[in-house]
């Protein structure tokens, strides 16, 4: 890769500053007070337990989907359909959480998460299998399957599993499986501990285990892996399934922690933010948590920015998107070697 490890953090910082600067100029042109906006953004993200709690609550799904995206990238796939896995995982948790009754709470909770993991993993296996079997482009399938997943859950919570309250949602899950709030009155919940645990496990798996070695080698060069006796197709499917499972966990935490039921269309592209946070750090799994937290803070702060500085909160999404546009440019900050040597040393020697 063109970006060396040493420069990564510098590049990241420069990219961030550049994006903020673009946002600054953008707001200035439109007649807002950019400095005030950024200040309100910061306050809205961190100052006070409500704000900080909102940041944490938003952090969890972004973190999990971000790590999920990065894991898929590790085996060389673009899992652009993680939002779909999140929805399906959420639905699985909501249904198991409501319809299974009479179990001890910890066991019930485990079942809810397992259901979400299995559903998410299986959904992600579809594009992976199509890719390794027949070479179908996984990006296209992931995105298209994402729409399908969304409509499936929409049908389920409007139709057969509707709570019947007029709102498109499933019935409330059992009391025992609800993840308690930890920073009231914000919606931050105990799901964050589960998320952190899951992410730590994934990081360990990737960097310390033989499974991680397989993922890495397959992602970098599947031909080499096959020749060495590592079945690249199998590993790609495994990687995508792990990715989908993480999406499923994210969905389960949203349902069991934040809402208590499945609400139609609740996610509003939160997995996209996860994807962004991973792409910004070039899918480096160890950096994803930092970037996810940053993006969660931006999201949380955007509300109060809109309220107090009058800037539409979608500007935050715009700036984040600009951030990722810049971040994808690998050679944006590499200092160009002088292209023309003509003027330099080798001119005339005769």
């Amino acid at each position, binding site marked *: 890769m063109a970006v060396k490890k040493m420069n990564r953090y510098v590049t990241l910082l420069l990219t961030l500053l550049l994006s903020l600067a673009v946002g600054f100029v953008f707001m200035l042109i439109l007649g807002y007070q950019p400095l005030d906006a950024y200040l309100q953004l910061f306050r809205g993200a961190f100052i006070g337990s409500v704000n900080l709690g909102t940041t944490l609550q938003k952090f969890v799904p972004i973190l999990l989907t971000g790590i999920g995206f990065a894991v898929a990238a590790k085996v060389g796939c673009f899992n652009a359909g993680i939002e779909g896995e999140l929805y399906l995982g959420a639905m699985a948790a909501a249904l198991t959480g409501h319809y299974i009754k009479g179990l001890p709470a910890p066991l019930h909770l485990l079942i809810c998460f397992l259901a979400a993991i299995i559903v998410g993993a299986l959904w992600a296996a579809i594009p992976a299998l199509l890719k390794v079997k027949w070479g179908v482009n996984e990006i296209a399938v992931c995105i298209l399957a994402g729409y399908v997943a969304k409509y499936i859950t929409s049908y389920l919570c409007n139709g057969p599993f509707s709570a019947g309250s007029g709102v498109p949602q499933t019935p409330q899950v059992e009391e025992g499986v609800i993840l308690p709030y930890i920073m009231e009155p914000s919606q931050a919940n105990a799901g964050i501990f589960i998320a952190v645990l899951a992410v730590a496990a994934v990081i360990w798996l990737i960097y310390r285990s033989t499974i991680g*070695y397989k993922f890495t080698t397959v992602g970098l060069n599947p*031909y080499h892996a096959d*020749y060495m*006796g590592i*079945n690249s197709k199998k590993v790609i499917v495994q990687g995508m399934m792990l990715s989908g499972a993480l999406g499923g966990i994210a969905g389960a935490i949203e349902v069991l922690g934040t809402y208590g039921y499945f609400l139609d269309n609740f996610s509003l592209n939160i997995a996209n933010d996860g994807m962004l946070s991973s792409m910004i750090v070039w899918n480096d799994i160890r950096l994803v948590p930092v970037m996810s937290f940053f993006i969660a803070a931006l999201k949380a702060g955007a509300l109060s920015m809109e309220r107090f500085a009058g800037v539409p909160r979608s500007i935050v999404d715009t700036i984040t998107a600009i951030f990722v546009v810049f971040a994808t440019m690998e050679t944006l900050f590499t200092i160009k070697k002088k292209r023309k040597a003509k003027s330099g040393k080798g001119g005339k020697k005769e």
Partner: protein
Amino acid sequence: MAAEEYIVEMTDIDKSFPAVHAVDGGQFNLKKGEIHSLIGENGAGKSTMMKMLYGLYEPDGGTIRIRGKEMTHLNPGIAIGEGIGMVHQEFMLVNELTVLENVILGFEPRKGVTIDFDESRKRISKYIDTYHMDIQPDKRINQISVGEAQRVEIIKTLYRGAEVLILDEPTAVLTPQECEQLFVILKGLRDSGKSIVFISHKLNEVMEISDRITVMRQGKYIRTVNKEDTDTKQLAKMMVGREVFLNIEKAKSKIGKPILEVKDLWTSGEKELSKIRGVSFQVRAGEIVGIAGVDGNGQSELVEAIAGLRRVEKGSILLDGTDITNYSPRKAREAGLTHIPEDRNLRGLNRSLSIEDNLIAWKFQTKPYASGIVRRKKEVRGFAEKLIKRFDIRPAEPEVITQSLSGGNAQKIVVAREVDADGKLLIASQPSRGVDIGAIESIRKILNEVKRQGKGILLVSADLEEVLALSDTIIVMYEGKIRGIVDSEEAGTDNVGMMMLGESPENHDKEVS
């Protein structure tokens, strides 16, 4: 030197790439109407020099003159305009397009914005007739043979008005007999006043075709000599910088039971002529069996089928008595197969990983390098250091990314891993391709050492000299079948060369259909 004497003058050329100083003080002058060979080992900077003349790379220093005019900021467009044409080592032909479309590309006769196909056809047939070249303009590139594709490349340069033709290792893909044909064409071109640069490292060819010869070594200019004033021995010395004797004596060893038995094997092929159709042979313990043949006659497919990387459609493969037909690569390895693949950058190595991660690639999940799924990095490090020392891999730092290594050292990693795996059979496919002479010597020594240990070796090489130098038995492949099997004592460039071209063998051990 009078400027008008030379059509091309390259003086004090300097060129660096991120990892290497490719050319350092390069000199090259070309007279009108001569065939001038540019020779040197792999990585000597020959191709880089010529790519600068063609404007593909920009020199960091030095001057390039064409017909006395100093050229700055050359690019292929300008070079073509100045009458420079280049036939690259890898053909610059688009498979999915026709011969005609490939030839006119970039210089299309037009009718308005559309292509004037009639005019194109007319112009091309002029060259086909003048130089008696046999090509079919309306075939797609993936439908024609390698030799024909090379002629298309030559026509392409002529069509673009080339006065200077650069040919980068043109004979690498040809049989000895096809080479002769090519030489006839080249001499014809010279006699009609074209100047030709012939890049090669095969000294016999160079002595046959050249008027003058320029030698490069490790990016540096060594000397330019007239053909009459030199011989292959002197050229070899200039190329390598010392006397070399690549003809290591064949290791004596006791030949034992069959290790590899291939019986009536049929497999798919990337091209029609590389499909394996009914191949049978065996490799015995303590024996090197060499497969000779022009690239693309099914050697790659055969090796892949044995190694579990390609489906066997019919027939069987036995490894030390065990039927390993259609085993996965993993199971085949577990059964005792080891394999140095032909393309070390694609299969042999994971170039983005470190030396140690590449060395451990087979044993990474076995004890003591892992317990359960936990990797033991300390043990891995120790293992890597041991192999680095034993096989003299440089740099001797386990954590260096392999991408930055020279061809020779990269290849040593592959060899080290496969030899260490300690199988029953070692398949060595193009083991010295793109490797410097020093590494070639040590790799050949290792192969002989493995043979002495009583293992079976299947050697595949497009370099006939290499096959002849190492093998006890030589199998010649042609169009996916075995043309002949020859004992090393009876094998020479002449009879094997004939078989490589598909001629019937004069003396062969058995006929295989």
